[in-house]
Protein backbone atom coordinates (compact mmCIF):
# COMPACT_ATOMS: atom_id res chain seq x y z
CA UNK A 1 0.00 0.00 0.00
CA UNK A 2 1.35 3.36 -0.96
CA UNK A 3 1.28 6.10 1.58
CA UNK A 4 -1.11 9.01 1.46
CA UNK A 5 1.60 11.35 0.32
CA UNK A 6 2.59 9.07 -2.53
CA UNK A 7 -1.02 8.85 -3.63
CA UNK A 8 -1.34 12.62 -3.58
CA UNK A 9 1.68 13.03 -5.86
CA UNK A 10 0.36 10.37 -8.22
CA UNK A 11 -2.98 12.10 -8.47
CA UNK A 12 -1.45 15.45 -9.23
CA UNK A 13 0.87 13.94 -11.83
CA UNK A 14 -1.99 12.16 -13.60
CA UNK A 15 -3.93 15.42 -13.48
CA UNK A 16 -1.21 17.29 -15.31
CA UNK A 17 -0.89 14.48 -17.84
CA UNK A 18 -4.58 14.82 -18.49
CA UNK A 19 -4.16 18.52 -19.06
CA UNK A 20 -1.47 17.83 -21.63
CA UNK A 21 -3.43 15.19 -23.50
CA UNK A 22 -6.46 17.42 -23.51
CA UNK A 23 -4.47 20.28 -24.98
CA UNK A 24 -2.93 17.96 -27.58
CA UNK A 25 -6.36 16.78 -28.54
CA UNK A 26 -7.54 20.31 -29.08
CA UNK A 27 -4.46 21.22 -31.11
CA UNK A 28 -4.90 18.10 -33.24
CA UNK A 29 -8.55 18.95 -33.83
CA UNK A 30 -7.77 22.37 -35.21
CA UNK A 31 -4.86 21.05 -37.26
CA UNK A 32 -7.13 18.34 -38.60
CA UNK A 33 -9.55 20.90 -39.93
CA UNK A 34 -6.82 22.75 -41.75
CA UNK A 35 -5.28 19.57 -43.09
CA UNK A 36 -8.63 18.39 -44.38
CA UNK A 37 -9.22 21.68 -46.14
CA UNK A 38 -5.84 21.42 -47.77
CA UNK A 39 -6.50 17.88 -48.92
CA UNK A 40 -9.84 19.08 -50.25
CA UNK A 41 -8.27 21.94 -52.20
CA UNK A 42 -5.76 19.65 -53.85
CA UNK A 43 -8.40 17.34 -55.24
CA UNK A 44 -9.50 19.27 -58.37
CA UNK A 45 -5.95 19.30 -59.66
CA UNK A 46 -5.49 15.60 -59.10
CA UNK A 47 -8.83 14.88 -60.75
CA UNK A 48 -8.00 17.06 -63.77
CA UNK A 49 -4.60 15.46 -64.11
CA UNK A 50 -6.08 11.99 -63.88
CA UNK A 51 -8.63 12.80 -66.59
CA UNK A 52 -5.90 14.09 -68.91
CA UNK A 53 -3.72 11.05 -68.39
CA UNK A 54 -6.69 8.75 -68.93
CA UNK A 55 -7.55 10.54 -72.17
CA UNK A 56 -4.00 10.35 -73.41
CA UNK A 57 -3.47 6.79 -72.29
CA UNK A 58 -6.46 5.80 -74.40
CA UNK A 59 -4.90 7.19 -77.56
CA UNK A 60 -1.51 5.51 -77.26
CA UNK A 61 -1.09 2.03 -78.66
CA UNK A 62 -0.18 -0.40 -75.87
CA UNK A 63 3.07 -1.42 -77.51
CA UNK A 64 4.24 2.20 -77.78
CA UNK A 65 3.27 3.09 -74.23
CA UNK A 66 6.13 4.27 -72.03
CA UNK A 67 7.16 2.00 -69.14
CA UNK A 68 5.55 4.29 -66.59
CA UNK A 69 2.21 3.52 -68.15
CA UNK A 70 2.58 -0.06 -69.29
CA UNK A 71 5.20 -1.36 -66.85
CA UNK A 72 8.56 -2.86 -67.64
CA UNK A 73 7.07 -6.17 -68.61
CA UNK A 74 8.72 -7.79 -65.63
CA UNK A 75 7.58 -8.22 -62.08
CA UNK A 76 10.67 -9.09 -60.10
CA UNK A 77 11.28 -6.11 -57.91
CA UNK A 78 8.61 -4.12 -56.15
CA UNK A 79 9.21 -0.77 -54.51
CA UNK A 80 7.08 0.07 -51.49
CA UNK A 81 6.56 3.72 -50.77
CA UNK A 82 5.63 3.81 -47.10
CA UNK A 83 4.17 7.10 -45.91
CA UNK A 84 3.94 7.67 -42.16
CA UNK A 85 4.14 10.60 -39.79
CA UNK A 86 7.25 12.07 -38.24
CA UNK A 87 5.78 11.96 -34.78
CA UNK A 88 4.16 9.39 -32.58
CA UNK A 89 1.42 9.73 -30.00
CA UNK A 90 -1.23 9.06 -32.59
CA UNK A 91 -2.41 5.57 -31.77
CA UNK A 92 -1.96 2.85 -34.35
CA UNK A 93 -1.53 5.35 -37.17
CA UNK A 94 2.10 4.58 -37.95
CA UNK A 95 2.22 0.97 -36.90
CA UNK A 96 -0.83 0.21 -39.05
CA UNK A 97 0.93 1.33 -42.22
CA UNK A 98 4.11 -0.46 -41.24
CA UNK A 99 2.20 -3.66 -40.49
CA UNK A 100 0.54 -3.50 -43.91
CA UNK A 101 3.92 -2.98 -45.55
CA UNK A 102 5.45 -5.93 -43.69
CA UNK A 103 2.56 -8.15 -44.70
CA UNK A 104 2.99 -7.09 -48.31
CA UNK A 105 6.72 -7.82 -48.18
CA UNK A 106 6.06 -11.27 -46.78
CA UNK A 107 3.42 -11.97 -49.42
CA UNK A 108 5.71 -10.84 -52.22
CA UNK A 109 8.58 -12.88 -50.81
CA UNK A 110 6.45 -15.99 -51.15
CA UNK A 111 6.05 -15.25 -54.84
CA UNK A 112 9.83 -14.72 -54.87
CA UNK A 113 9.46 -11.07 -55.76
CA UNK A 114 12.15 -8.88 -54.33
CA UNK A 115 11.11 -5.79 -52.42
CA UNK A 116 12.65 -2.41 -51.81
CA UNK A 117 11.37 0.24 -49.46
CA UNK A 118 11.25 3.99 -49.64
CA UNK A 119 10.15 5.62 -46.40
CA UNK A 120 8.58 9.01 -45.99
CA UNK A 121 8.22 10.13 -42.40
CA UNK A 122 10.49 9.28 -39.52
CA UNK A 123 8.29 6.84 -37.65
CA UNK A 124 7.94 4.39 -40.49
CA UNK A 125 11.65 4.54 -41.15
CA UNK A 126 12.48 3.86 -37.50
CA UNK A 127 10.12 0.90 -37.35
CA UNK A 128 11.14 -0.67 -40.65
CA UNK A 129 14.84 -0.06 -40.23
CA UNK A 130 15.03 -2.62 -37.48
CA UNK A 131 13.44 -5.48 -39.38
CA UNK A 132 14.00 -4.64 -43.03
CA UNK A 133 17.00 -2.33 -42.89
CA UNK A 134 18.79 -3.82 -45.87
CA UNK A 135 15.76 -3.30 -48.12
CA UNK A 136 15.41 0.41 -47.51
CA UNK A 137 16.67 2.32 -50.51
CA UNK A 138 15.83 5.78 -49.30
CA UNK A 139 13.98 7.78 -46.74
CA UNK A 140 12.84 11.28 -46.27
CA UNK A 141 11.46 13.30 -43.40
CA UNK A 142 8.43 15.44 -43.88
CA UNK A 143 9.20 19.13 -44.02
CA UNK A 144 8.76 20.96 -40.75
CA UNK A 145 5.84 23.30 -40.45
CA UNK A 146 2.24 22.93 -41.36
CA UNK A 147 2.50 23.14 -45.11
CA UNK A 148 3.23 20.22 -47.33
CA UNK A 149 4.46 22.01 -50.40
CA UNK A 150 4.01 20.30 -53.73
CA UNK A 151 7.75 20.63 -54.26
CA UNK A 152 8.26 18.04 -51.53
CA UNK A 153 6.15 15.48 -53.36
CA UNK A 154 7.99 16.36 -56.56
CA UNK A 155 11.33 15.68 -54.89
CA UNK A 156 10.15 12.26 -53.73
CA UNK A 157 8.73 11.53 -57.18
CA UNK A 158 12.03 12.54 -58.76
CA UNK A 159 13.96 10.15 -56.53
CA UNK A 160 11.59 7.32 -57.33
CA UNK A 161 11.69 8.05 -61.04
CA UNK A 162 15.47 8.09 -60.86
CA UNK A 163 15.39 4.61 -59.37
CA UNK A 164 12.90 3.49 -61.98
CA UNK A 165 14.96 4.65 -64.94
CA UNK A 166 18.00 2.93 -63.40
CA UNK A 167 15.99 -0.31 -63.46
CA UNK A 168 15.83 -0.33 -59.68
CA UNK A 169 12.34 -1.81 -59.61
CA UNK A 170 9.46 -2.90 -61.84
CA UNK A 171 6.37 -1.94 -59.89
CA UNK A 172 5.71 0.56 -57.16
CA UNK A 173 2.97 0.60 -54.58
CA UNK A 174 2.17 3.31 -52.10
CA UNK A 175 1.13 2.54 -48.54
CA UNK A 176 -0.50 5.28 -46.54
CA UNK A 177 -3.45 6.21 -44.36
CA UNK A 178 -6.47 7.52 -46.16
CA UNK A 179 -9.03 9.42 -44.16
CA UNK A 180 -12.45 7.86 -44.07
CA UNK A 181 -13.85 10.31 -41.57
CA UNK A 182 -12.33 12.66 -39.05
CA UNK A 183 -12.08 9.84 -36.57
CA UNK A 184 -11.07 6.91 -38.70
CA UNK A 185 -8.30 6.17 -41.16
CA UNK A 186 -7.87 3.21 -43.44
CA UNK A 187 -4.51 1.90 -44.48
CA UNK A 188 -4.54 2.00 -48.25
CA UNK A 189 -2.36 0.43 -50.87
CA UNK A 190 -2.24 2.06 -54.28
CA UNK A 191 -0.21 0.94 -57.22
CA UNK A 192 1.39 3.95 -58.89
CA UNK A 193 3.83 2.33 -61.33
CA UNK A 194 2.66 1.13 -63.75
CA UNK A 195 -0.32 3.41 -63.67
CA UNK A 196 -3.68 1.99 -62.74
CA UNK A 197 -6.94 3.83 -63.05
CA UNK A 198 -8.07 4.82 -59.57
CA UNK A 199 -11.20 3.03 -58.58
CA UNK A 200 -13.86 5.71 -58.47
CA UNK A 201 -17.51 5.50 -57.61
CA UNK A 202 -18.78 6.85 -60.89
CA UNK A 203 -17.88 4.74 -63.91
CA UNK A 204 -15.45 6.43 -66.23
CA UNK A 205 -17.83 8.35 -68.45
CA UNK A 206 -14.85 10.00 -70.12
CA UNK A 207 -14.68 8.68 -73.62
CA UNK A 208 -16.99 11.17 -75.30
CA UNK A 209 -16.45 9.69 -78.70
CA UNK A 210 -16.73 12.88 -80.74
CA UNK A 211 -14.02 14.67 -78.81
CA UNK A 212 -10.96 13.77 -80.78
CA UNK A 213 -8.28 15.86 -79.25
CA UNK A 214 -5.52 17.73 -80.87
CA UNK A 215 -2.30 17.29 -78.96
CA UNK A 216 0.42 19.85 -78.59
CA UNK A 217 3.17 18.68 -78.67
CA UNK A 218 2.60 15.07 -79.82
CA UNK A 219 0.97 12.40 -77.67
CA UNK A 220 4.24 10.76 -76.76
CA UNK A 221 5.94 13.93 -75.58
CA UNK A 222 2.88 14.98 -73.67
CA UNK A 223 2.62 11.62 -72.02
CA UNK A 224 6.30 11.67 -71.16
CA UNK A 225 5.68 15.01 -69.43
CA UNK A 226 2.40 14.11 -67.83
CA UNK A 227 3.21 10.74 -66.31
CA UNK A 228 6.01 11.88 -63.97
CA UNK A 229 3.87 14.86 -63.06
CA UNK A 230 0.95 12.57 -62.34
CA UNK A 231 3.15 10.48 -60.07
CA UNK A 232 4.07 13.59 -58.09
CA UNK A 233 0.42 14.55 -57.90
CA UNK A 234 -0.52 11.12 -56.57
CA UNK A 235 2.25 11.25 -54.00
CA UNK A 236 1.24 14.74 -52.96
CA UNK A 237 -2.34 13.57 -52.56
CA UNK A 238 -1.15 10.71 -50.36
CA UNK A 239 0.92 13.14 -48.29
CA UNK A 240 -2.06 15.36 -47.68
CA UNK A 241 -4.32 12.45 -46.84
CA UNK A 242 -1.73 11.06 -44.49
CA UNK A 243 -1.20 14.45 -42.82
CA UNK A 244 -4.91 14.86 -42.21
CA UNK A 245 -5.14 11.26 -41.04
CA UNK A 246 -2.28 11.80 -38.60
CA UNK A 247 -4.12 14.64 -36.92
CA UNK A 248 -7.34 12.65 -36.85
CA UNK A 249 -5.58 9.67 -35.31
CA UNK A 250 -3.85 11.87 -32.77
CA UNK A 251 -7.13 13.47 -31.84
CA UNK A 252 -8.72 10.09 -31.19
CA UNK A 253 -5.69 8.79 -29.32
CA UNK A 254 -5.51 11.86 -27.12
CA UNK A 255 -9.20 11.73 -26.42
CA UNK A 256 -8.82 8.17 -25.23
CA UNK A 257 -5.80 9.11 -23.17
CA UNK A 258 -7.73 11.96 -21.57
CA UNK A 259 -10.55 9.61 -20.70
CA UNK A 260 -8.19 7.01 -19.30
CA UNK A 261 -6.47 9.65 -17.19
CA UNK A 262 -9.87 10.70 -15.85
CA UNK A 263 -10.69 7.09 -14.92
CA UNK A 264 -7.34 6.72 -13.25
CA UNK A 265 -7.78 9.89 -11.24
CA UNK A 266 -11.14 8.56 -10.08
CA UNK A 267 -9.62 5.28 -8.91
CA UNK A 268 -6.68 6.95 -7.21
CA UNK A 269 -8.93 9.41 -5.44
CA UNK A 270 -11.12 6.59 -4.21
CA UNK A 271 -8.20 4.73 -2.72
CA UNK A 272 -6.79 7.98 -1.34
CA UNK A 273 -10.05 8.76 0.43
CA UNK A 274 -10.36 5.22 1.72
CA UNK A 275 -6.89 5.31 3.16
CA UNK A 276 -7.42 8.69 4.70
CA UNK A 277 -10.62 7.45 6.31
CA UNK A 278 -8.85 4.33 7.53
CA UNK A 279 -6.13 6.43 9.11
CA UNK A 280 -8.69 8.61 10.87
CA UNK A 281 -10.59 5.60 12.14
CA UNK A 282 -7.38 4.04 13.37
CA UNK A 283 -6.43 7.18 15.25
CA UNK A 284 -9.89 7.39 16.78
CA UNK A 285 -9.71 3.79 17.93
CA UNK A 286 -6.32 4.44 19.43
CA UNK A 287 -7.57 7.49 21.29
CA UNK A 288 -10.70 5.74 22.54
CA UNK A 289 -8.93 2.59 23.62
CA UNK A 290 -6.25 4.75 25.22
CA UNK A 291 -8.84 6.67 27.27
CA UNK A 292 -10.66 3.45 28.15
CA UNK A 293 -7.47 1.97 29.53
CA UNK A 294 -7.16 4.79 32.04
Amino acid sequence: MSSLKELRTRISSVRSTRKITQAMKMVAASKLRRAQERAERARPYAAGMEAMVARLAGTVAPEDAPPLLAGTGRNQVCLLLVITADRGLCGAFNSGVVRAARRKIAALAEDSIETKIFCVGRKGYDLLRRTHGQRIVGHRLLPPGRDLPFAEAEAVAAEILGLFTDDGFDTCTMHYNRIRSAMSQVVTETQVIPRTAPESDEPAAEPDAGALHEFEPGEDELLADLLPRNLAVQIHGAFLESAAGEQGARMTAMENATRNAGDMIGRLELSYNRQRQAAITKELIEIISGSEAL
Partner: protein
Amino acid sequence: MADAPLIELELITPEATLLAATPELVVVPGSEGEFGVLRDHAPILSALRPGTVQVHATFDAEPECYFVTGGFSEAGPEHCLILADEAVPVADIDTAAADRAVADAEAALREAESGPDEAARERAEQALQVATARRAAAG
Protein backbone atom coordinates in the same frame (compact mmCIF):
# COMPACT_ATOMS: atom_id res chain seq x y z
CA MET B 1 -22.33 41.86 -76.54
CA ALA B 2 -24.69 41.03 -73.76
CA ASP B 3 -25.20 37.37 -74.47
CA ALA B 4 -21.77 36.52 -75.77
CA PRO B 5 -20.98 32.83 -75.50
CA LEU B 6 -18.87 32.10 -72.45
CA ILE B 7 -16.36 29.41 -71.62
CA GLU B 8 -15.99 27.77 -68.27
CA LEU B 9 -12.45 28.42 -67.18
CA GLU B 10 -10.69 26.73 -64.31
CA LEU B 11 -7.15 27.59 -63.31
CA ILE B 12 -5.90 25.04 -60.82
CA THR B 13 -2.57 24.55 -59.07
CA PRO B 14 -1.62 21.51 -56.99
CA GLU B 15 -2.37 23.46 -53.85
CA ALA B 16 -5.62 25.20 -54.67
CA THR B 17 -8.12 26.28 -57.29
CA LEU B 18 -6.89 29.74 -58.18
CA LEU B 19 -9.66 30.84 -60.48
CA ALA B 20 -13.02 29.58 -61.68
CA ALA B 21 -14.72 32.00 -64.02
CA THR B 22 -16.71 32.27 -67.22
CA PRO B 23 -14.82 34.64 -69.48
CA GLU B 24 -15.34 35.13 -73.20
CA LEU B 25 -11.73 34.62 -74.17
CA VAL B 26 -8.72 32.97 -72.61
CA VAL B 27 -5.23 33.21 -74.05
CA VAL B 28 -3.07 30.27 -73.04
CA PRO B 29 0.73 30.07 -73.40
CA GLY B 30 0.98 26.68 -75.12
CA SER B 31 4.35 25.01 -75.54
CA GLU B 32 4.02 25.38 -79.32
CA GLY B 33 2.76 28.95 -79.14
CA GLU B 34 0.05 31.00 -77.54
CA PHE B 35 -3.49 30.13 -78.41
CA GLY B 36 -6.76 31.82 -77.66
CA VAL B 37 -9.70 29.78 -76.49
CA LEU B 38 -13.19 30.92 -77.45
CA ARG B 39 -16.40 29.02 -77.18
CA ASP B 40 -16.60 26.00 -79.53
CA HIS B 41 -12.86 25.60 -79.58
CA ALA B 42 -11.72 22.30 -81.06
CA PRO B 43 -10.68 19.91 -78.30
CA ILE B 44 -7.03 20.34 -77.56
CA LEU B 45 -4.62 19.07 -74.95
CA SER B 46 -1.48 21.11 -74.71
CA ALA B 47 1.56 21.49 -72.52
CA LEU B 48 2.29 24.98 -71.25
CA ARG B 49 5.47 26.98 -71.30
CA PRO B 50 6.26 29.59 -68.66
CA GLY B 51 4.14 32.59 -69.57
CA THR B 52 1.00 34.54 -68.97
CA VAL B 53 -2.57 33.30 -69.04
CA GLN B 54 -4.82 36.16 -70.11
CA VAL B 55 -8.41 36.01 -69.05
CA HIS B 56 -10.71 38.41 -70.93
CA ALA B 57 -14.06 38.69 -69.19
CA THR B 58 -15.32 40.32 -72.39
CA PHE B 59 -13.49 40.80 -75.66
CA ASP B 60 -12.86 44.47 -75.11
CA ALA B 61 -12.06 44.26 -71.42
CA GLU B 62 -8.57 44.55 -70.09
CA PRO B 63 -7.37 40.99 -69.46
CA GLU B 64 -6.76 39.61 -66.02
CA CYS B 65 -3.30 38.11 -66.19
CA TYR B 66 -1.85 35.13 -64.34
CA PHE B 67 1.72 34.02 -64.61
CA VAL B 68 2.19 30.24 -64.85
CA THR B 69 5.51 28.42 -64.63
CA GLY B 70 4.32 25.55 -66.76
CA GLY B 71 1.76 22.80 -66.71
CA PHE B 72 -0.97 21.47 -68.96
CA SER B 73 -4.16 22.75 -70.46
CA GLU B 74 -7.19 21.08 -71.87
CA ALA B 75 -9.79 22.99 -73.82
CA GLY B 76 -13.03 21.89 -75.39
CA PRO B 77 -16.11 23.52 -76.86
CA GLU B 78 -17.39 24.69 -73.50
CA HIS B 79 -14.57 24.54 -71.06
CA CYS B 80 -10.94 25.35 -70.58
CA LEU B 81 -9.00 23.63 -67.83
CA ILE B 82 -5.54 24.85 -66.93
CA LEU B 83 -3.43 22.73 -64.62
CA ALA B 84 -0.55 25.00 -63.71
CA ASP B 85 2.57 23.87 -61.87
CA GLU B 86 2.54 27.22 -60.13
CA ALA B 87 0.46 30.28 -60.81
CA VAL B 88 0.28 33.82 -59.44
CA PRO B 89 -1.70 36.87 -60.48
CA VAL B 90 0.67 39.07 -62.43
CA ALA B 91 -0.16 41.99 -60.18
CA ASP B 92 1.27 40.05 -57.23
CA ILE B 93 4.69 39.53 -58.77
CA ASP B 94 7.39 41.44 -56.95
CA THR B 95 9.42 43.06 -59.74
CA ALA B 96 12.56 43.38 -57.66
CA ALA B 97 12.35 39.76 -56.55
CA ALA B 98 11.79 38.68 -60.15
CA ASP B 99 14.90 40.61 -61.19
CA ARG B 100 16.89 38.91 -58.48
CA ALA B 101 15.53 35.51 -59.51
CA VAL B 102 16.72 36.09 -63.09
CA ALA B 103 20.18 37.09 -61.87
CA ASP B 104 20.34 34.06 -59.57
CA ALA B 105 19.19 31.71 -62.32
CA GLU B 106 21.81 33.13 -64.69
CA ALA B 107 24.50 32.63 -62.11
CA ALA B 108 23.33 29.08 -61.42
CA LEU B 109 23.34 28.32 -65.13
CA ARG B 110 26.88 29.64 -65.55
CA GLU B 111 27.95 27.41 -62.71
CA ALA B 112 26.13 24.39 -64.09
CA GLU B 113 27.61 24.93 -67.57
CA SER B 114 31.11 24.49 -66.26
CA GLY B 115 30.05 21.37 -64.37
CA PRO B 116 29.89 17.89 -65.89
CA ASP B 117 26.28 17.16 -64.88
CA GLU B 118 24.01 17.23 -67.93
CA ALA B 119 20.79 17.03 -65.91
CA ALA B 120 21.83 19.90 -63.65
CA ARG B 121 22.48 22.10 -66.68
CA GLU B 122 19.08 21.29 -68.09
CA ARG B 123 17.45 22.12 -64.79
CA ALA B 124 19.31 25.40 -64.58
CA GLU B 125 18.24 26.28 -68.12
CA GLN B 126 14.63 25.61 -67.27
CA ALA B 127 14.89 27.65 -64.10
CA LEU B 128 16.28 30.55 -66.10
CA GLN B 129 13.44 30.29 -68.62
CA VAL B 130 10.90 30.44 -65.83
CA ALA B 131 12.65 33.36 -64.16
CA THR B 132 12.91 35.30 -67.42
CA ALA B 133 9.28 34.69 -68.25
CA ARG B 134 8.26 35.79 -64.78
CA ARG B 135 10.26 38.97 -65.14
CA ALA B 136 8.69 39.60 -68.55
CA ALA B 137 5.20 39.01 -67.18
CA ALA B 138 5.78 41.49 -64.38
CA GLY B 139 6.29 44.13 -67.07
